[in-house]
């Protein structure tokens, strides 16, 4: 890449020209002139349409096919231009260009399908080759146009990175039409699309023409892609089809909701992206739209309640805490049991000179001081422990809780020993695996199964010493 450098000092100057509040307001409310309004409306609609059909493309695992489609459209644009010019029509007429783009885009996807049907190549290799070769052909055609001296290829290269500024009223109407078509078709075909996305084999056995449903789906993808070429560009249109649905997936487990969320994210990205691009100089709309959608994606990825990573880590952490807590209580109980502790209201662990402080417990071996502190705090919070400066005291409540845990554990051990044929030497660790996730109903069932009622704690089935060597999972 050719870089010529005028003054290095300007590079570190990262300040922007901050637009005034009123300018922001007028763009966002579509009052910044007819053209700006059209750009914003057009890209918003495009975002909605791509967000909807993208959901199905994603669930059908055809997302990258759309990328191949978009890249393959480039030679179509160039050839349509050349043919148009040769025939004396305006080479830049949009319908002509879009026809060329559609033709080559579809041709590209057909080649991908044919190549991957040969079984020597995985589909993604076919996609990669088709995508880059067709794009290469496009570059060649563009260089021919450039060299022909008409100087008109400038209009075409907008299609690569997208150029929202070039949007006109008819383009907005075209986008509106495409968006409306996508919404209507997706509503009518929701059930069919859902069927093939979820269980293609069943669909075929039930007599549905899967290829026909796929064809309709791909047609919508093609329409949205081609319409989006002008504003978002060949290189980035894939993002509008993939990013909003992928983001929406984090929020919901229901398809209609997912479609709605995806459409909303797509629409808002289009709206915000186009507005930002209008407000700041040299922020190409296509890229800004994608970045806004990307922000939505990463927010969803991190913070969505059901499937986000933060929620995932919190859940994992809570489970770990509960497991350690269970182990801790059980170990305390078992120590008491061994030292013939009785069920007094307040039990002392490590009486007299034999002070057992929590960090010495085997459950705690290898854990960090912070984890020890945290667990102690949590157990204290629940009223299971009271801490004096020299020893740790188990309260009545704590004792009962511990008894319950031990009962649980031993019931499982017994069940596994008698019903699941797991050897005695292994029941302890096997019971460890299951006991923490038990619901009260299951424990009740277990008791019935083992004809054991009440809250009595059964005897341990194995020497307790082994329990102290237990590691924190």
């Amino acid at each position, binding site marked *: 890449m050719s870089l010529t450098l005028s003054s290095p000092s300007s590079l570190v100057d990262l300040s922007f020209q901050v637009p005034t509040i009123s300018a922001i307001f007028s763009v966002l409310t579509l009052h910044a002139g007819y053209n700006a309004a059209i750009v914003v409306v057009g890209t918003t609609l495009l975002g909605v349409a791509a967000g909807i059909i993208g959901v199905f493309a994603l669930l059908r695992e055809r997302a990258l096919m759309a990328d191949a489609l978009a890249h393959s459209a480039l030679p179509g644009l160039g050839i349509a231009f050349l043919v148009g010019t040769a025939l004396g029509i305006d080479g830049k007429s949009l319908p002509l260009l879009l026809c060329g783009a559609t033709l080559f885009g579809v041709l590209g996807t057909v080649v991908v399908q044919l190549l991957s049907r040969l079984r020597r190549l995985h589909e993604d290799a076919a996609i990669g080759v088709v995508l880059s070769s067709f794009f*290469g052909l496009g570059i060649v055609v563009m260089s021919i146009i450039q060299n022909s001296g008409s100087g008109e290829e400038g209009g075409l290269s907008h299609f690569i990175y997208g150029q929202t500024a070039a949007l006109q009223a008819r383009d907005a109407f075209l986008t509106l039409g495409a968006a409306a078509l996508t919404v209507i078709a997706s509503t009518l075909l929701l059930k069919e699309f859902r069927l093939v996305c979820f269980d293609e084999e069943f669909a075929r056995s039930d007599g549905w023409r899967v290829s026909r449903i796929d064809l309709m789906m791909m047609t919508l993808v093609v329409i949205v892609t081609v319409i989006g070429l002008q504003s978002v560009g060949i290189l980035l249109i894939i993002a509008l089809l993939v990013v909003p649905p992928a983001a929406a997936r984090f929020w919901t487990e229901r398809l209609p909701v997912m479609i709605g969320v995806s459409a909303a994210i797509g629409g808002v990205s289009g709206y915000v992206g186009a507005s930002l691009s209008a407000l700041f100089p040299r922020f190409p709309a296509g890229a800004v739209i994608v970045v806004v959608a990307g922000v939505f994606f990463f927010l969803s990825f991190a913070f969505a309640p059901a499937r986000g990573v933060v929620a995932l880590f919190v859940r994992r952490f809570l489970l770990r805490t509960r497991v350690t807590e269970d182990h801790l209580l059980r170990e305390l109980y078992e120590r008491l049991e061994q030292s013939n502790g009785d069920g007094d209201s307040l039990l002392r662990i490590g009486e007299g000179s034999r002070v057992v402080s929590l960090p010495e417990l085997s459950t705690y071996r290898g854990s960090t001081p912070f984890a020890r502190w945290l667990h102690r705090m949590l157990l204290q919070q629940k009223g299971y422990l009271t801490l004096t400066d020299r020893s740790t005291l188990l309260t009545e409540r704590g004792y009962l809780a511990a008894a319950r845990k031990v009962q649980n554990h031993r019931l499982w051990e017994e069940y596994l020993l008698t019903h699941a044929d797991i050897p005695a030497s292994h029941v302890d660790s096997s019971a460890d695996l299951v006991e923490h996730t038990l619901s009260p109903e299951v424990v009740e069932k277990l008791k019935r199964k083992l004809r054991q009622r009440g809250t009595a704690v059964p005897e341990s089935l194995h020497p307790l010493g082994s329990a102290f060597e237990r590691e924190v999972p």
Partner: protein
Amino acid sequence: MIDFLSIDLPPLLAALFAAISCALLGNYLVLRKISLMGDAISHSVLPGVVVAFLLSGSRAGGVMFLGAAIAGILSALLIEGIRRFGKVESGASMGVVFSLFFAVGIIAMEQAAARSVDLDADCLLHGQLESIFWYPPLELSRFFSWSTLALIPSEVVIAFLTMLLTIGFLKLFSKELLLSSFDPELSTSLGFSSTLLYQLLMVVVACAVVASFRIVGSILVISMLISPAASARFYTERMKTQLVMSVFFAAITVFCGYTAGAFGPLLFGYEHSVSIAGMIAVSGGVLLVFSSLLAPQRGVLARKWRQRRLALAVRSDDILALLYRTEEQGGHLSRSKLLAHFFLPKRTAHVLRQLLAEGLIEEHGVQLSLTPSGKARAEQCVRSHRLWESYLVETAAVDRDHVHPMAERLEHFNTEELEGALEQALGELPTKDPHGKEIP
């Protein structure tokens, strides 16, 4: 000559070196079914280059290289993280990450341009192959002096070094890479962590992509990565051969692409050359299509031809066997009866003509009969058929009524080995088949 040395040779060499490193690495991408990681990395490299440039203010190769490599690795990690923790299908997580990186790159580039830095967006797409020049010395004796070597364009040098790096990496890790591509779990259990190898591979791919995208542009480099390896898949099953072929194909695509781009248009009386990088990518695609159609054994045409030949062989066996059985029962067969017996009479007529020409069948008036040599062939066939019938009934527990059509299928594939095994499986050789007919 001087023209060639200064105008054509440097870009050719640069493209060749770049194509070779890409093609070698591409083999592993294709075999691991992660071809699109190459795509993702080449898209992601853009922000790395631009941001490194914006931050450092220098266009030194090293800094930009570092930025690109970091971006490439970051994107690989991010794709994996999103796939694993977000449960997003891998294609989609690639799409999300690389398009986002690319978008950031475009914005950063525009911003750089705003600061009166000439970062040309188009160069990103077609590279700058055409602008690689070398001024060779006029006398031969000065060719190998330091001052001449220092004038070699940096693109050529970097591409060459990357090629050495790639070859070195692949040599060093050849068995580990092969193992982890084929069986990642075994590889990890043997102590070659497949994730580590994967990351290493991605680093080297990122390096190769960075070195090449200055030459052919960021989209077209994908073709260099995948096409040669994908084409080689149609010729061989062996890794070594595959690697060698991919290098060979890389060279072919570069030469064809260069010739077509630089000189092709002149042949049509067109005075300008067209984008060479584009042509290299196109020739990669054309190569793959050609290979898939014409490769000697795995190509589509070869397969079709083989199937046809096989069908003819089967039909000729069937005709001979039919004649044999008819004659065995003392009957005769006319041409028209024979044709009516089989599906696709045209094929039967064709095969019959061949058999007559080979002297396996004679025609007396309208009656067809086997010649002695034809009889021997037919015996072979009928024997194979009846042996299979016996085997199916005795060993495979197939119902007596159903063995005939099944044996009809199997009889054509008896090799000597298989026949020996068949005889062995039957123990004492039966003289009659399950229908009570004699085994010749």
